[in-house]
C-alpha cells in the first residue's frame, strides 16, 4: 500500500513536471516555471528615442477577454535612458525579469510577481563592473541564479564571456572563452544531456557604431559545446558568419539543436556525431539577416525573423534532411524579436534590432496567428510605439505572463 501510494504520487508528479509538447512555452530556459494558461500580459523592453524620456518596460494587455486587449496599459519607467534595452529573461521562479541594457552594462531587476500588470523596478545592477565584461545580452535562468552572456570584454573589445549572478544580483563567477573563440552571443542548455551551447556575434567596437562602419570579419564563426556542470568547453565547431540565436530541440534527450547565422543568411542544425561529439549541417538559406529564432511547442517548426528582407519565416525541421520553408509573412519593416505563445498559435513581433542598425522610424508590436496553413498577420493587433505621450520608443525583447 505504502509503495503503491508513493508510486502514484511520483507518477502524478512526473505527469505534471514532464514534457507536454502541445502546450508549453518555448525558447526560455528549461529551468523556468512554465505558464500554465494562455498569456494575459505581454512585457516589452523599450528604449526611448527622443533623448528626453527614459527607457521603459511596456505592458500590453493580451488577455483576449479584456476590454483593453491589444493596448499598452502601463509603462514602467526605468529611471534612465540610453541603455539600449535589449534581451531579457525570467528568473527560474518567474518572479523577476532581468532586463539587459546592452550599452549601459546595467541589468534592471524587475518584480513581475507582486502585481503582474504593474511591474516594479526592484534593483539596478551594473553587471559590467561586477564581471569585468560589457554588453550584457542573453539573460538565462539557472536554478536560483542567472547566467548572462556578454558580447564584449571590459573596454568593448574582445574577449567576450559569460558570468553568473544570484537572482538578487550578486556576482558568482565569470566564464572565460577559449583564446581562439573570443566571441559571444547566445546560450542554450540541455540539462538532461549536461550540455550547453553558445554562439558568437561581434563586440561593441562594431555594434556601437553605424552598420556601414562595421567590420563584418570581426565576428564569431563557431559554436561552442560546453560541459554544463563543469562549465568547460568540450568542442568548438566551425560555422558560417556570426552564429546568432541558438536553440536545443525541445524533445527530452534529443541530441540536436538549431542556429541562425546573421551574416550568412543561413539556418543550421547541430547534432550528435556517430563517432562522438557534435557536428553541423546547413539546413537552408533564409531571408536576409536572420536575427531571431523561436520554436513551436511540438518541436516541428522554427520561426525566424529576417530583418533585412522584412519577413518572418516558418520552417518545418521535423526531418533534418528535408528542412523546408513552409510559410512566410511580412509584418512591416525590419521585424526582429518574436515570441511564441504556449499553444503555438500566436506569434508576437517587434521591429527594433539595434539603434545603430535600425533604418525604420516606425516602431510597433504586431501579432501573427498560426494555423495549419501557416502564419497570417492579425490586422487588428498593432501597438504603435511611434506616437506615445512619452515620445517614440524602439521595442525589443518580449515575455508573457
Amino acid at each position: 500500500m505504502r509503495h503503491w501510494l508513493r508510486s502514484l504520487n511520483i507518477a502524478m508528479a512526473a505527469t505534471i513536471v514532464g514534457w507536454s509538447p502541445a502546450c508549453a512555452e518555448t525558447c526560455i530556459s528549461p529551468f523556468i516555471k512554465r505558464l500554465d494558461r494562455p498569456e494575459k500580459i505581454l512585457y516589452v523592453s523599450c528604449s526611448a528615442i527622443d533623448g528626453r524620456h527614459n527607457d521603459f518596460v511596456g505592458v500590453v494587455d493580451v488577455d483576449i477577454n479584456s476590454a483593453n486587449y491589444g493596448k499598452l496599459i502601463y509603462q514602467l519607467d526605468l529611471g534612465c535612458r540610453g541603455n539600449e534595452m535589449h534581451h531579457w529573461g525570467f528568473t527560474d521562479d518567474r518572479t523577476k525579469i532581468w532586463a539587459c541594457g546592452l550599452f549601459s552594462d546595467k541589468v534592471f531587476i524587475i518584480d513581475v510577481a507582486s502585481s503582474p500588470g504593474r511591474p516594479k523596478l526592484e534593483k539596478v545592477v551594473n553587471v559590467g563592473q561586477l564581471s569585468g565584461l560589457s554588453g550584457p545580452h542573453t539573460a538565462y535562468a539557472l536554478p536560483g541564479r542567472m547566467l548572462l552572456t556578454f558580447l564584449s570584454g571590459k573596454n568593448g573589445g574582445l574577449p567576450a564571456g559569460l558570468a553568473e549572478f544570484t537572482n538578487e544580483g550578486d556576482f558568482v563567477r565569470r566564464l572565460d572563452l577559449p583564446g581562439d573563440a573570443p566571441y559571444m552571443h547566445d546560450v542554450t542548455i540541455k540539462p538532461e544531456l549536461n550540455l550547453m551551447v553558445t554562439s558568437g556575434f561581434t563586440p561593441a567596437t562594431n555594434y556601437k557604431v553605424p552598420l556601414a562602419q562595421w567590420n563584418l570579419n570581426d565576428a564569431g564563426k563557431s559554436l561552442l559545446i560546453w560541459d554544463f556542470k563543469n562549465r568547460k568547453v568540450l568542442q568548438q565547431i566551425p560555422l558560417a558568419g556570426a552564429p546568432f540565436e541558438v536553440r536545443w530541440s525541445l524533445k527530452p534527450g534529443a541530441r540536436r539543436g538549431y542556429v541562425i547565422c546573421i551574416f550568412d543568411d543561413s539556418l543550421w542544425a547541430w547534432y550528435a556525431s556517430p563517432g562522438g561529439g557534435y557536428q553541423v549541417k546547413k539546413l537552408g538559406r533564409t531571408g536576409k539577416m536572420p536575427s531571431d529564432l523561436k520554436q513551436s511547442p511540438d518541436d516541428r517548426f522554427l520561426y525566424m525573423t529576417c530583418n533585412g528582407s522584412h519577413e518572418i519565416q516558418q520552417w518545418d525541421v521535423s526531418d533534418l534532411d528535408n528542412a523546408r520553408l513552409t510559410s512566410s509573412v511580412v509584418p512591416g519593416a525590419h521585424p526582429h524579436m518574436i515570441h511564441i505563445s504556449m499553444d503555438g498559435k500566436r506569434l508576437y513581433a517587434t521591429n527594433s534590432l539595434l539603434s545603430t542598425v535600425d533604418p525604420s522610424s516606425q516602431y510597433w508590436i504586431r501579432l501573427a496567428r498560426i494555423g495549419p496553413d501557416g502564419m497570417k498577420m492579425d490586422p487588428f493587433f498593432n501597438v504603435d510605439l511611434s506616437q506615445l505621450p512619452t515620445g517614440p520608443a524602439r521595442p525589443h525583447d518580449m515575455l508573457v505572463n
Partner: protein
Amino acid sequence: MWNLGLILLLGAAPVEAGPTSYLAVIRNAPDFSLTNQSGTRVRLRDLRGQVLLVSFIFTTCNGSCPATTHRMCQVQEELKKRSIPAGQVRLLSITLDPARDTAEVLRSYAQLYDCDLNGWDLLCGPPPEVGPVIASWGMWARPAANGQLDHPSRVFLVDRKGQIREIYNLSFLKPPWVVDDIAALQRETP
C-alpha cells in the same frame, strides 16, 4: 547529405570556472534552527563539517515535491553504493507548509517514501519560525489556483563550511551527478 560536419576538438585546456572547483561559491547558507520529525532541534551551523543537501517540500504536494523526495532517496542509495558514510553527508527537507506539516506528519511522509532517517532530517516548526527560514533561502510558497502551493523547485548543495555550492532543480537533480558533486566537496580541504 550530412556533408558539412566539421568537428574540431580543442587542444587547449578549458578554462577553470573557479580557482579550485567547478562548484562556485554561490553564497553562504542562511542559518536556522528547526525541529525534525522526531522532535529534535536541528541547527544548521551545528552541521558544519558535513556536506548538506537541502530541499524544500510539503507533504500534500502533487507537483514536484514527490519526485524531489524520491530523487533524494535515490541520492541516499547512491551514497551507500559508493560507500560514503552517512555521517559525512546529511539530507535536510524543510517544509513549505508549516501549518500542516507537523513532526508527526513528516514522520509518516518519511515512512511513505522510505527515507532512511539515519542521515535525513525532515524539518518543521510553527509558521512564524519556518516562514523566515523559507524567505532567507530565497524560497517562497503561495496558494495556487488548483488548491496546491506554488513554489520554486530548488535543492541546495551546501559544503562543509556552510556555503551554497550548487542549486539543482528537478530536471538537473540526477543522483549520480549529485553524488559526484558531494564527492568533489568532500575532497576539498575543510
